[in-house]
């Protein structure tokens, strides 16, 4: 009979807290969004499942010597996983549209305003006494506005590891929700005429330019902002492998087996930070709230910059592509394309939006470097 009692006391049903049940529900919700709604499935499936595992009472997988705790220490705390993902992103990114129209980098710069506005917002909530974020925590929260998962995880791992779960979930959830969050803002800030603007076709970009671009970017980062060099260095390395044409087998593995393996363990590890006692705290609510504000402000500032550039530039620029400056590659480009098509059925903005879209990746890595430099 003792043994049966021991089974019962060891069972999840006996030990389950309300918070854990709630978090298992959150995990199931993330899986639902990923599988049924097809929102960012690569990350939401893995994070969601990791979140469920982390909230099973009595199971040693997300804590102690458990697998997910080990991968968290080895891969997230060290920054290794986000850096490897960035290498993979580099190997999968075509900088051609950006090279064909480098001015779209300004759109990628403008959209980073969401990051800094959110930083200020987080400090404002603290000043009001509603939250209690340090400047490092506020900086890590702001990066959610960069709409770039690995950057957010990398920065949170360095500046505010205690908030990493909430920040990662906010970043990926809102990236998943980009098709819902962005269009109303884009429509509100542009006139139908602006949305109808067709853009000049992009020129072909030579292989030589494609090879030199990652090296140029690396050297600029090295000289101007070394704290952004790990992220952007790995991005450049991946892209150089892709474009140089002599290491195709390395590039192929980076884009497939390697990034897939790391994505699985990154997702599960991040999910392992969704344990109820860590996640169900008031600051999570604040982070979720600030995160959506960050996305909205980033979208708006990208669009407004697009309007400004359209007035100043000789070639017409459709301000909708400014919204793609937040990153969230390639979803934000697709959104810009879709909203453009609504206004003008001949207006294919997809390739034009890819320029600011990848510029947004660079821009938020730069912002991340600045945050790390000033607060650590």
């Amino acid at each position: 009979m003792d043994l049966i009692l021991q089974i019962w006391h060891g069972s999840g049903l006996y030990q389950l807290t309300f918070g854990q049940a709630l978090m298992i529900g959150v995990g199931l919700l993330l899986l639902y969004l990923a599988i049924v709604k097809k929102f960012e499935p690569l990350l939401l499936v893995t994070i969601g499942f990791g979140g469920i595992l982390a909230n099973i009472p009595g199971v040693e997988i997300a804590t102690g010597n458990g697998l997910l705790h080990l991968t968290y220490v080895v891969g997230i705390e060290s920054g290794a996983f986000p850096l490897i993902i960035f290498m993979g992103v580099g190997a999968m990114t075509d900088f051609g549209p950006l090279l064909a129209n480098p001015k779209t980098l300004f759109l990628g710069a403008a959209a980073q305003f969401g990051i800094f506005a959110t930083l200020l917002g987080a400090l404002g909530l603290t000043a009001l006494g509603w939250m209690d974020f340090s400047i490092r925590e506020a900086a890590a929260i702001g990066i959610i506005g960069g709409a770039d998962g690995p950057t957010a995880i990398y920065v949170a791992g360095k500046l505010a590891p205690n908030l990493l779960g909430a920040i990662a979930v906010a970043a990926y959830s809102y990236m998943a929700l980009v098709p819902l969050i962005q269009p109303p803002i884009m429509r509100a800030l542009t006139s139908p005429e602006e949305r109808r603007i067709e853009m000049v076709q992009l020129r072909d970009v030579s292989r030589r330019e494609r090879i030199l671009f990652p090296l140029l970017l690396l050297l600029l980062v090295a000289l101007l902002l070394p704290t952004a060099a790990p992220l952007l260095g790995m991005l450049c390395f991946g892209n150089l492998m892709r474009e140089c044409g002599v290491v195709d087998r390395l590039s192929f593995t980076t884009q497939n087996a390697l990034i897939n393996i790391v994505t699985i363990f990154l997702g599960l590890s991040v999910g392992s930070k969704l344990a109820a006692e860590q996640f169900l705290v008031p600051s999570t609510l604040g982070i979720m709230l600030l995160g959506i504000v960050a996305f909205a402000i980033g979208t708006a500032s990208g669009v407004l910059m697009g309007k400004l550039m359209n007035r100043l530039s000789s070639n017409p620029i459709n301000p909708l592509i400014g919204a793609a400056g937040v990153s969230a590659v390639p979803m934000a480009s697709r959104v810009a394309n879709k909203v453009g098509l609504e206004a003008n059925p001949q207006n294919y903005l997809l390739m034009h939006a890819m320029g600011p879209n990848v510029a947004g990746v660079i821009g938020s890595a730069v912002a991340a470097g600045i945050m790390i430099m000033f607060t650590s």
Partner: protein
Amino acid sequence: MEVTLLEQGLELMLIGMGAVFVFLTTLVGGTSLMSWLVQRFTPGADSSGEVADEEIAAIGAAIAQHRRK
């Protein structure tokens, strides 16, 4: 000390956005210069034709790899 957290944040925002713009402006300049130099010193278009070649090479390599296996 009277510098509040909020003032610190404001300063970080101004400097930060400034730095982002300075960096990306430099990158726009550098990229434009690089492209101009490449186009000036490279005769003929080298992009479109090559892609097709690469594709053929990739398929060839895949077949070869299969055979080798």
